[in-house]
């Protein structure tokens, strides 16, 4: 079976190797560049007045590139599912070669197990190496940005991509077996996996471990550290807060601004502060608005995951993907007996 696996997979393997080599060359180059830029930023920090600006310059220089890379490498599992998984059985059924290969002295289940093991392993090695390279290249940036739990960043670093790739491949294989046609199977696999990848960070990841709760008083300082205030509907919300003393914690839920008695702040009062705050000459991102709001004695309730749980989250999520893959493998092994 190993020979047959290799014979049927060698072109895809070659394409993957070439792709990985290109990614590696670019990421090695980028990684060195980021390290140089990081050293430059550190040396400017000798002067404390310059440090904050140097830091934000360093961050913004690489933020988009790294986000784009994380998104791009995040597509590798989708490509694997559609191009390696979906045709694995569907193509054989389409050109009838299953009638040839399933009549050799190898049972259908064993054939499927061998094929899934071989290509599945290749998928995990490919994404594992790509993820390793990106994790290395982005390491200085990640240490500064403290946003390892970001929806895109989390899924593109360390071990999580390995679980994604394996599930995408197994999903594609099963869809191919059920749909029996390559092109529809590729399309279905791609769509289903993309929907999954957009849902998990929002609907599943926050609940992998019970979150910590805390209340943040809305002082002028805390409001000025936030990224956004208000929404397009004028609701009294605040976004992009940080847990004091734990900048790498992941805030998964933030309540609207609440008054001392626990009620949500009325829209009119909020908009008054937003539009026509009394002039006090307060500085910072939100200036007079921040001062106005802080006088209302407000707070928000937040749910968050401490940054120290990062590796637990990586492992739990990878394990979850592998477990779902295992379930799909069992279904495929059942189904192939009656294919």
């Amino acid at each position, binding site marked *: *079976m190993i*020979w*047959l696996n290799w*014979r*049927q997979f060698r072109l895809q393997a070659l394409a993957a190797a070439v792709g990985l080599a290109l990614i590696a060359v670019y990421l090695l180059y980028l990684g060195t560049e980021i390290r140089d830029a990081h050293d430059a930023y550190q040396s400017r920090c000798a002067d404390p007045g310059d440090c904050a600006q140097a830091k934000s310059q360093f961050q913004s220089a690489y933020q988009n590139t790294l986000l784009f890379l994380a998104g791009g490498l995040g597509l590798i599992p989708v490509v694997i599912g559609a191009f390696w998984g979906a045709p694995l059985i569907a193509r054989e059924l389409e*050109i*009838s*070669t*299953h*009638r*040839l*290969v*399933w*009549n*050799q*002295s*190898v*049972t*259908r289940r*064993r054939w499927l197990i061998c094929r899934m093991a071989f290509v599945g392993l290749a998928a995990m090695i490919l994404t594992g190496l790509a993820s390793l390279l990106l994790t290395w290249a982005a390491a200085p940036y990640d240490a500064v940005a403290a946003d390892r739990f970001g929806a895109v960043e989390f899924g593109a670093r360390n071990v999580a991509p390995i679980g994604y790739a394996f599930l995408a491949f197994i999903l594609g294989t099963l869809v191919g077996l059920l749909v029996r046609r390559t092109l529809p199977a590729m399309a279905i696999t791609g769509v289903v996996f993309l929907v999954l990848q957009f849902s998990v960070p929002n609907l599943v990841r926050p609940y992998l471990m019970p979150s910590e709760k805390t209340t943040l008083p809305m002082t002028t300082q805390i409001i000025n550290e936030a990224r956004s205030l208000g929404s397009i509907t004028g609701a009294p919300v605040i976004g992009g807060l940080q847990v004091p003393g734990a900048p790498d914690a992941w805030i998964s839920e933030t309540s609207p601004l609440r008054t001392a008695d626990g009620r949500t702040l009325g829209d009119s009062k909020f908009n008054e502060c937003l539009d026509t705050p009394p002039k006090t000459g307060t500085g910072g991102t939100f200036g007079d608005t921040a001062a106005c709001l802080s006088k209302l004695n407000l707070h928000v309730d937040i749910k968050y995951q401490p940054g120290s749980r990062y590796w637990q989250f990586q492992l739990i999520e990878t394990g979850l993907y592998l477990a779902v893959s295992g379930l799909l493998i069992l279904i495929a092994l059942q189904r192939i*007996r*009656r294919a």
Partner: protein
Amino acid sequence: MSHEDSVPVLRAEGLTKRYGRRVALNGVDLTIPAGRVVGLVGPNGAGKSTLLNLACGLLEPTSGSLRVLGSRPAESAAHLARVGFVAQDTPVYPSFSVADHLRLGARLNPSWDQELAERRIAQVGLNPGQKAGRLSGGQRAQLAMTIAAAKRPELLIFDEPAAALDPLARRGFLENLVEFVAELGASAVLSSHLLSDIERVCDHLIVLCAAQVQVAGKVQDLLAAHHRLVAPRGELDRLPAGVEVVRMENNGQYSRALVRTDVPPPSIPYRVEPVTLEELVLGYMSRAFAAGEGTR
């Protein structure tokens, strides 16, 4: 023959296969003894492919039982090794060379006979380096047949093996196929919608029509048991016990009947003529079609 007592190569009891509402096989009872070259004949859509795909385990019966060489089809790797199957349209991997296919056979079959495979490839003039996607239909059939045979199975199943060949090449191909099966010492089942394909090469015949086996048996037994009776019209309405009318034709003042009888012909008081295999098969097929239309 010692084969007669051994386990039948195929035994079906009440074998039924439905695709949705369409019934492809309807309660088929069938036993094929070992050591025969069996021809499975019937019109297109009669259920031949379904029966053969069930026999090699590519399909599962809807109900009823099917044993091949005493086991459930494709039950284990060891059982797969005992049955060789050449599917309709002889699928091969287009990007694999002829040699790659032999390598596939060698890697996946413990009982693989490389010498036999190479000899046969040379005999039929296939170039080992050629990509299978570029082979003609006939060459592909030869390649698929070689892969199935070189694992040295006890039973070889061919689903319409000559379908891709032109009429001139068919006979030679089939005769060659049967010689080859004999050399392997295997039993064989081959299907065709053309009786002419198989009447020369098979010693056992199964007529499959309208999802059921119409008649099955050794060719010489079938010929010995079937006769044509010719008598004045009306005379054939009452026949002695043990004489079964397969098909009756009234032609002017005379009736002609294809009958199956266990009674030796001289005891029947009519003109008795021998029948050809073709008449026999056509008789059963027309009966099946007439019955099918009667129930509709």
